[in-house]
């Protein structure tokens, strides 16, 4: 447990993974199980059966337009019910396999409703919610979908968003530090994950005026001294998203942690940073 500046405790006592039948969800499940094993915490699989979909399918003119082919197909309630059942069964099977493989305690929660609402309802501040890059965004070229961003920016817990493939474990934990107001909790979470993963912690300092960057670095050093944590620093060369992405790629981290208040999350123009990064991102409240 890490105590932050403002006295709140940064704890991760449960890992929740949002499951559907996509490949991204499987990758998310694997990463979640790994985290749960490292933390010795419980793993909760969450399957939300979308009521919007069920209702759409029940309408007499219910149709489905294929993701890739664009073909228009008839859709019925029975079809949808069957698919959702299969989805839940598949989720249970995958969870059981992951739990057995990592030797973690797991459970599955299946509910009906809207994905965002039901997900947020399940989480508590000491959870870490793990998401694949869900919704249709990936398939249509919008890499960081609206639903994912909405959950990441409104959840009451830390949210980890995974890319297409897990990163090698033997790499440092990266944390974007933009000041004590928004960054301390990110630092706490990063320190926790670095300790769990037994990896170094690299603090990324965003581009800014020289004095400001130095001040930021000093603040981070003070934090590190207080928490007796070894850190290294890397100054990002530019605020321009492609350059940042390039710099992060060269750094070769295992996971990037940033605050919900960070520009990269708040400013839609900077969200491409998240889109481009292939490494997992943890957004902390």
């Amino acid at each position, binding site marked *: 447990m890490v105590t932050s500046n403002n006295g709140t405790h940064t704890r991760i006592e449960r890992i929740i993974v949002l499951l559907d039948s996509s490949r991204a969800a499987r990758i998310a499940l694997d990463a979640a199980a790994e985290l749960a094993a490292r933390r010795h915490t419980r793993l909760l699989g969450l399957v939300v059966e979308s009521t919007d979909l069920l209702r759409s399918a029940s309408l007499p003119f219910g149709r489905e*337009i294929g*993701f890739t*082919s664009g073909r228009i197909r008839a859709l019925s309630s029975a079809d949808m019910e069957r698919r959702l059942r299969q989805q839940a069964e598949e989720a249970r099977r995958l969870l059981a396999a992951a739990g057995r493989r990592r030797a973690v305690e797991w459970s599955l929660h299946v509910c009906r409703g809207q994905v965002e609402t039901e997900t947020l309802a399940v989480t508590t501040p000491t959870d870490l919610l793990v998401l694949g890059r869900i919704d249709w965004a990936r398939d249509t070229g919008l890499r960081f979908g609206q639903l994912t961003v909405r959950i990441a920016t409104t959840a009451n817990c830390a949210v980890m968003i995974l890319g297409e493939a897990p990163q090698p474990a033997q790499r440092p934990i990266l944390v974007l530090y933009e000041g004590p107001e928004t960054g301390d909790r990110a630092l706490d979470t990063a320190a926790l994950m670095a300790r769990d993963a037994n990896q170094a912690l690299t603090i990324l300092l965003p581009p800014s005026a020289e004095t400001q960057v130095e001040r930021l670095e000093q603040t981070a050093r003070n934090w590190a001294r207080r928490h007796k944590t070894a850190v290294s620093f890397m100054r990002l060369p530019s605020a321009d998203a492609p350059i940042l992405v390039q710099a992060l790629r060269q750094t070769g981290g295992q996971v990037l942690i940033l605050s919900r208040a960070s520009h990269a999350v708040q400013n839609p123009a900077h969200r491409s940073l998240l889109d481009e990064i292939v490494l997992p991102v943890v957004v902390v409240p």
Partner: protein
Amino acid sequence: MVIPKPLNPEELYRRCDPKSFDFETTADLGPFNEIFGQNRALETLKFGTGINSEGYNLFVLGPPGIGKHEVVEKFLRARAADEPTPPDWVYINNFVNPHKPRLIELSAGRGKRFRDDLEQLVQELRSAIPAIFESEEYQSRLHDLQQEFGQRQQEAFHEIQEEADKHDIALTQSQSGFTFAPKRDGEVLRLESYRALPEEERQAFERTIERLQERLQQVIQQMPRWRKETQNRINELNEEMALFAVGHLLDEFRADYQDCPRILEHVDAIQKDVIENVGAFVGQEDHNRAAEQLLNRYLANVLIDNARQQGAPVVYDDMPTHQHLIGRIEHHVQQGALLTDFRLIRPGVLHQANGGYLIVDVRKLLMQPFAWESLKRALYSNQIKTESLEQLYSLMSTVSLEPEPVPLNLKVVLLGERLLYYLLSAFDPDFLELFKVQADFEEDVARTTESTEHYTRLIGTMAQQEGLLALDAGGVARVIEHGSRLADDSERLTTHNRAIIDLLREAHYWASSADSDRISSQHVQQAIDHQIYRASRVRESMERAIHRGTIIIDTQGEAVGRVNGLSVIQLGNYAFGRPTRITATARLGRGNMVDIEREAKLGGNIHSKGVMILSNFLASRYARNRPLSLSASLAFEQSYGLVDGDSASVAEFCALISVLADVPLKQALAVTGSLNQHGQVQAVGGVNEKIEGFFDICKKQRLDGAHGVLLPAANIPHLMLRHDVVEAVREGHFHVYPVSTVDEALALMTGMEAGERGSDGEYPADSVNHRVEQRLQELAELARRVHGNNEERVEQRKTNGDE
């Protein structure tokens, strides 16, 4: 008839007088750099190497140890030094057909430079390409293109999304697609609520949803095209950047190799390849491996580098296998599969000798499977096609290459024994087509003043080159004398260099053992004696058997129908003479001569021929006008192996005459020589060994002045007898008689006159021949009587009706 006189000691051995030399040791002599005694072979080599027509390759014939290899190599190296240095040959990747690597010819030394330049180019590409593709400019432009694509899709979706929102329609994602449905307060309407809507509203929803579905369908179906368009633009960008990255490097390369169209084509292919495979150069890890694989294809494999070659190459292949000749294609194992590429083509000796000369031992060549055929194939086609045997004979189906053949222009010089030349000529129709020039090595040269002087210098040069002690005049003289003995001719000198060098080495050993600072005649003699001693176990064993009477050889007294013949036994490179008792019997018969050796299948064809000549000579000389009513037999006593050659025919004749004339033969004499149908004695081989063999036996049983050997007069020039034999002759203890006719031999062997027919056609009474004729007449008369009685008995039986 004059009975031959024994030969003088001077006629038995041709000495070389050390006093005729004007040096103290051979160290005082200048080097002898010429090739001794092989003028014919050298002329042939000059002709064979000078003529440029097809098929004029050479076959150098001669026995082992004569120095063929040294002579040929020395000659070729001298000749090749003045000839142009052949070009370098380089293999490069074929970008169109990678399994058919391309060949480039470059002037000597340029091949390596070309390879180094390519390595330098690849090194520069290795850094220049990623640098360009990791540059801010490229990343930024790539990002723009990708953004543009994303933006295009996003806008298309957003438009649909917005229109849907405008009409209170929700766009929801399922596992495999999208659905549209009417919504209220952010949620899709339940079926009951929907049904509760007015008909008009429901129809409006349905129409709108149908339109939205079609639009979404159009958008989705357009996406592959947009993606392709974007990819094309990315490719264009890549080409532009790649060209910028490598263009100037390749232009420099082009400028350096303007004169070589194949290299320019290769450079163009590299440029095209870089552009097509830009993706492999950008990124990390996996990309690096892929990039290295690509870059390796741009390199060159210098098959033949003649940078250090001065003149044409002269190559000797001591292991002429198929692969050694035409090269090989190596493979490396990758994930259990055997893979290869142009860099793994390795040259053979044909490549190395191309433009020059290749020397091969024909025996070794013929002993290697497929090598002879491969060499012929290359010479016929004038090109070297590197193929593995398994590929050639479809034995294995691994990934392999078919490199462009290398044009072949060289002279092959085969070295081998005469027999192999004659066998190949007889049995391989291609052989004389491809090896039109035969260079036949002399085995000996005339022993003249001039050749002796050359031989002297040659001996000195050999000793110096071998790091041996120098020879004094006596030593040289003894070596020269031995050279004549090795040639089996007092008037010739051997050209078997190996035998002479071995003798010098061994003489050096004995001289060094005696702490001498030079090799003198006693050391040479010691070397010769020791050579004989080392090989003499069998000879001594046979001598012992004769001495103990196990093998019966009489060397004293006289005997009828028995004569000492002489044979030579060759064991390895050592030959020695051995006396053999030849016996004859005769009785009444019908003119048949039984050659017991032949009947027992122990006689060779030449021996049989000798006996037949003997038989006919006997009949024509003594029974011209009547039947030869004789049955005689001839045998080599205590001979249990094959007997061949006709050198015993004079001895056989003497034994037979002895029986017929009932005249004893002197057992102190031995006879060698072959007989012709006119009674002349003809030369035979191995006379020195034969005389020495009989001498050794007689010496053991004490020489008493009666001992000696009869040999054909024509063999006198071949005599180079051992020193102790010559000394025994000088002291009158042993004699060597030259004979020209059988009558001379008979006179010597019997001590009686052989006899010549007088004007009356009769032999003188009491001559050997007269006795023979008398005896044959008696036998004929006897035969007539016996046959006459037999005929009478037959007639009587017929009359009595007994038949």
